[in-house]
């Protein structure tokens, strides 16, 4: 209790808002402190920061013309890494390093944007189904069953084919096919929260559904959704890789998945041109691993059952 004293300002100078904000700051500070103590989490965070910075400064490092086969006609083909070409060139003479840099932008964008879509749809459906219940719940859960039961890859392929190859369509496809997992987890949590006594107390106080959801349900499912979101990013990145590898990616934007596909079709593996496929592969593994490490750590820190009592 001693750490309490430095938070408590004697007298009643605090306004309710400032009390609430102080609490949030304190909670966030505690999570951050636990996060910093977590080795894996910090390793993941450093990798993510590095990749994000790399993706952001890419336009300063390399010109987009390096992605064009026409502009690369003068370059040697299948050149191994050298001073001129840091990561060598591909079968068309394009710089692998430039493709890698631009690919990181696509992969990160798809990973983060698709995850946001998954989280928004999934948590919305989960909260509505769990809180309202009844026939609304039945309909929403049958719908999510439908998405869960249909084999994911064929559905994604069909959707990507119909909608056409653009990066936003890829994001959309990943979003609409992956939300049921988040919806299920959120709904389960909401169902258990709804039975909690403090929700009944709020009802007895005359609270509206809106108040109960905003004050009691959402703050208690938010950590779970956050942890799941960080775990959904790798799935989205891998899905983008899969779709790009199958030739359903955006032909104008290079991505790590597309690099792998092009390396594969160009015969980089038989030519032993490791510099063509390894960077993209390692990039995917590193980002996926980093998100997973952060996600697992967050899950551990935010789950009260896994956390020692404050």
């Amino acid at each position, binding site marked *: 209790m001693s750490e309490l004293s430095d938070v408590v300002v004697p007298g009643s100078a605090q306004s309710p808002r400032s009390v609430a904000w102080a609490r949030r700051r304190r909670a966030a500070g505690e999570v951050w402190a636990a996060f910093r103590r977590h080795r894996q989490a910090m390793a993941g965070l450093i990798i993510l920061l590095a990749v994000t910075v790399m993706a952001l400064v890419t336009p300063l490092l390399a010109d987009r013309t390096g992605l064009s086969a026409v502009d690369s006609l003068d370059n040697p083909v299948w050149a191994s890494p050298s001073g001129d070409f840091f990561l060598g060139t591909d079968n068309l003479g394009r710089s692998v390093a430039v493709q890698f840099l631009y690919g990181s932008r696509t992969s990160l964008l798809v990973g983060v944007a698709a995850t946001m879509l998954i989280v928004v749809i999934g948590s919305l459906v989960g909260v509505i189904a769990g809180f309202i219940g009844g026939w609304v719940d039945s309909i929403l859960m049958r719908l999510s069953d439908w998405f869960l039961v249909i084999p994911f890859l064929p559905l994604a392929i069909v959707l990507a084919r119909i909608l056409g190859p653009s990066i936003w369509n890829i994001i959309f496809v990943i979003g609409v096919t992956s939300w049921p997992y988040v919806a299920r987890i959120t709904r389960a949590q909401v169902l258990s929260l709804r039975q909690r006594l403090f929700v*009944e*107390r*709020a009802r*007895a106080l005359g609270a509206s559904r809106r108040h109960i959801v905003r*004050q009691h349900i959402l703050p*208690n499912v938010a950590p779970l959704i956050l942890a799941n979101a960080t775990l959904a990013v790798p799935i989205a990145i891998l899905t983008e890789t899969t779709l790009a590898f199958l030739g359903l990616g955006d032909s104008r934007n290079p991505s790590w998945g597309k690099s792998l596909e092009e390396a594969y079709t160009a015969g980089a593996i038989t030519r032993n041109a490791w510099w063509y496929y390894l960077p993209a592969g390692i990039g995917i593994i590193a980002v996926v691993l980093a998100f997973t490490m952060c996600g697992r750590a967050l899950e551990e820190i935010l789950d009260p059952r896994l956390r020692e009592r*404050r």
Partner: protein
Amino acid sequence: MAEPLLSVRDVHVRFASRRGPVHAVAGVDLDVVPGEVLALVGESGCGKTTLIRSILGLVAPTSGSVTFDGHVVGRGHRRLRRLRRSVQMVFQDPTGALNPRHSLYESVAEGLRIHKVEGDEIGLVHDALSRAGLRPAARYAPRYPHEVSGGQRQRALIAGAMALSPRLLLADEPVASLDASIRGEILALMRGLVDDTGVSIVAVTHDLGLAWNIADRIAVMYLGRIVEIGATEDVIGDPQHPYTRALLSVVPELEAMERQILRGETPDPSRVPSGCRFHPRCPVVASGEAERLGILARCTGEDLALAPVPGAAPPDRVHAHLAACHAVSADATITAGGEGSAGATPG
């Protein structure tokens, strides 16, 4: 006589369960006048908690009416909202009833915010906290439920209820989850609130001894019905129903009574016995007393309602001493025809 603040008329609550319909509350009439403490006593599963939850509309009564302050309580959020400002509830488990992510301040202020109470929120919250015994309020307000003791949590819960200046407080086993040493303090606090603010309290408890300590009136419930009701001194001093006597006989403070340990659990409310619902466990029936009085057939076959206890002159409708027992009325006929000694009790 004061007009009743709360009137419950013939309220039934039925639930569907896997084994068929459960009749948790089976026709209850109850009046609460301003400024009184009514204790609702009975074993686990007798429907007392369901009854007070139905008063607040937390479970919808299957039939019957609840009137608060002259207005029949309707259904639906809008109508219940007004009721839920004047009627507050205190829960058995203060740990579960406080959101672990909210400070005591936020929990107490919640009702004020829901009802958009005008005025100085901080002042109202701190005032409620200090009235509930959490002093100095500024020190307790920013704390979280896990940072204070169980008794302090219950005080915070009471503060949250009293912040809205309710006219009726429904307390569901308010001290059952607390240490014996803290129970007395919480009960004294509740009694003090009645004296200071004129609030009425309906306290649900399974402990007649506790009811004796704080209640002005006691209602004893058995299997969804009130079987005896009256002023505390009448019910404790002159219990009429065999069930009340059995409950009283095991209160340690009342050593004079011969102990009667009731056999069996509370019967299953999905299968209510015929006749008087207490007869399978009734000591009057088991001892052969009912047969001697010639009422055995009525005990096992004839349902009955509350009736005024003979002898005592009822002060008024609300405060009358009522019991639902064939033996009480049968005995009354005998005493009325015979020696006429008031206070004679069967068994």
